[in-house]
């Protein structure tokens, strides 16, 4: 295939994942790296996340989003890593030796770039009203919470005066506080699940601080209004999530913010034939962040939706390191390595990685996963092999769906496993 330029590594996406991945690959010795970003600025979603609380794990201090990304952007500039801003990655193709990235920008037009390795770091996008099918009119004033956050924090537009928020994900909670501080009245936050979607800290500091009520097991069942939203109907739901007749409450509001979930943005990955896990909506990866397509790695919210950027950074560093190994040492994974497939029981939503090449685990492999319900009492995370033999178990005093869990499995335990399956379950 014809191409314009050649690189050792192309990183697609200049948010926290892409920044950390490019830097780590550079630290490992790659010099020929290109970071592609479709916006005019690096930093991704962190640019509009002006609240603080980022970096508690990674930097041991509380930073705002822009301050957190600046630490990586400064290092990127110091190390003269090439960045293509305002550039859209249109498609990705995979062959044995090379990855081809088709890009478009105002300055360089249409280009085909080839690279030994590619890191997918495109992040995620918000689930919309259409995807959750709220009945009602199509009046103005219905926004995704993150979209409203962009308008308010980056462009300085207030999106409404009297607001109701559907979904208690972190973005919605953060926006409840933000809108209130900027003078709007937030009448309620409504959550269909029996438990909050966001972090406890945000429930307290974004809702309780401002006396905004949170209604669990409730949802919006109708939106009225011609030009602008005028009224929404809220109803309680039963255990199956079905609205209960007779529980209707009406709120006169001009704005509805939706914080109803994030979806990894994997159009490029799918087109390149990268296999996607339906549970995460992100690529299936091995322990070294490599997808099932050779030379293509993935990290951050494109892989699975995180609640803390600190974990994104760590995951991206691992992907950057692995991609550099791949470029420097060729296919540096053990041929015919024993592959363990991670399965989850019905209490766990998913795990990342989904596959472990046992021989390629150095000392430990860190497995991330999310539980599906609240565990207020101590519970055990148990790993069992095909024969149902317990391989390892870890105690947790409590677990929440909003908080990603992780455990580090030692290599010596993995070596003892019979068969090729390892199941994670919650017991007791």
């Amino acid at each position, binding site marked *: 295939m014809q191409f314009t330029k050649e690189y050792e590594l192309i990183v697609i996406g200049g948010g926290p994942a892409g920044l950390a991945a490019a830097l780590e690959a550079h630290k490992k010795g790659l010099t020929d790296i290109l970071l592609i970003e479709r916006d005019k600025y690096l930093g991704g979603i962190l640019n509009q996340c002006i609240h603080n609380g980022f970096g508690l794990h990674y930097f041991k201090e509380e930073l705002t989003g822009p301050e957190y990304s600046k630490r990586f952007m400064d290092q990127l500039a110091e190390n003269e890593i090439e960045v293509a801003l305002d550039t859209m990655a249109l498609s990705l193709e995979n062959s044995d030796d090379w990855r081809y990235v088709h890009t478009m920008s105002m300055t360089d037009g249409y280009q085909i770039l080839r690279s030994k390795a590619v890191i997918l770091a495109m992040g995620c996008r918000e689930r919309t009203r259409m995807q959750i099918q709220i009945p009602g009119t199509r009046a103005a004033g219905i926004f995704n919470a993150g979209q409203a956050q962009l308008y308010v924090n980056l462009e300085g537009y207030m999106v409404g005066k009297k607001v109701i928020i559907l979904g208690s994900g972190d973005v919605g909670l953060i926006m409840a506080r933000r809108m209130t501080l*900027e003078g709007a009245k937030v009448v309620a936050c409504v959550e269909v699940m029996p438990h909050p979607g966001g972090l406890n800290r945000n429930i307290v500091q974004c809702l309780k601080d401002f006396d905004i009520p949170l209604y669990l097991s409730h949802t919006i069942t109708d939106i009225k209004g011609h030009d602008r939203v005028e009224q929404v109907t809220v109803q309680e739901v039963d255990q199956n999530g079905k609205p209960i007749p007779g529980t209707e409450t009406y709120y006169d509001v001009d704005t509805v913010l939706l914080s109803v979930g994030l979806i990894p943005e994997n159009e490029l990955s799918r087109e390149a034939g990268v296999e996607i896990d339906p549970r995460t909506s992100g690529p299936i990866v091995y322990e070294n962040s490599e997808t099932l397509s050779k030379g293509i790695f993935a990290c951050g919210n494109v892989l699975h939706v995180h609640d803390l950027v600190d974990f994104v950074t760590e995951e991206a560093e691992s992907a950057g390191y692995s991609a550099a190994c791949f470029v420097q040492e060729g296919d540096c994974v053990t041929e015919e390595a024993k592959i363990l497939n991670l399965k989850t029981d019905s209490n766990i939503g998913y795990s990342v990685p989904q596959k472990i090449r046992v021989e390629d685990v150095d000392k430990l492999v860190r497995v991330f996963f999310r539980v599906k319900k609240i565990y207020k009492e101590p519970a055990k995370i148990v790993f069992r092999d095909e024969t149902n033999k317990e391989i390892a178990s870890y105690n947790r005093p409590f677990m929440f769906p909003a908080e990603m869990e992780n455990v580090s499995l030692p290599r010596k335990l993995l070596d003892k496993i019979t068969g090729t399956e390892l199941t994670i379950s919650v017991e007791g």
Partner: protein
Amino acid sequence: MIEEIICIVCPRGCHLKVDPENDYEVTGNACPRGIPYGKAELKNPTRVLTSTVIIAGDDLTRCPVKTDQAIPKAKMHEAMQLINQVKLNSPVKVGDVIIENIVGSDANLVVCRDIG
């Protein structure tokens, strides 16, 4: 009167009971870290305040700002009124002080993003 608050030291979210009439005694905490949190939350609750201010002279028209220390929770709205009057000119750097000792606290309002 005993007040009930949710502890945010860790994700567990213990429902603490704090008694201001009994030297702010904290109960309902599953671990010792809940005690200082519960006391401080009732005696003197503070928050770091973040917002944006208008900036001229750059493609970006809003600049993110924060108080470099926590300020009393009760003064957040007063601080917002001051923040809403600020107009900056590019360039600015992270850490530039915009308002010293905002709302009479020890905190300064500072810039959170390099612009220009």
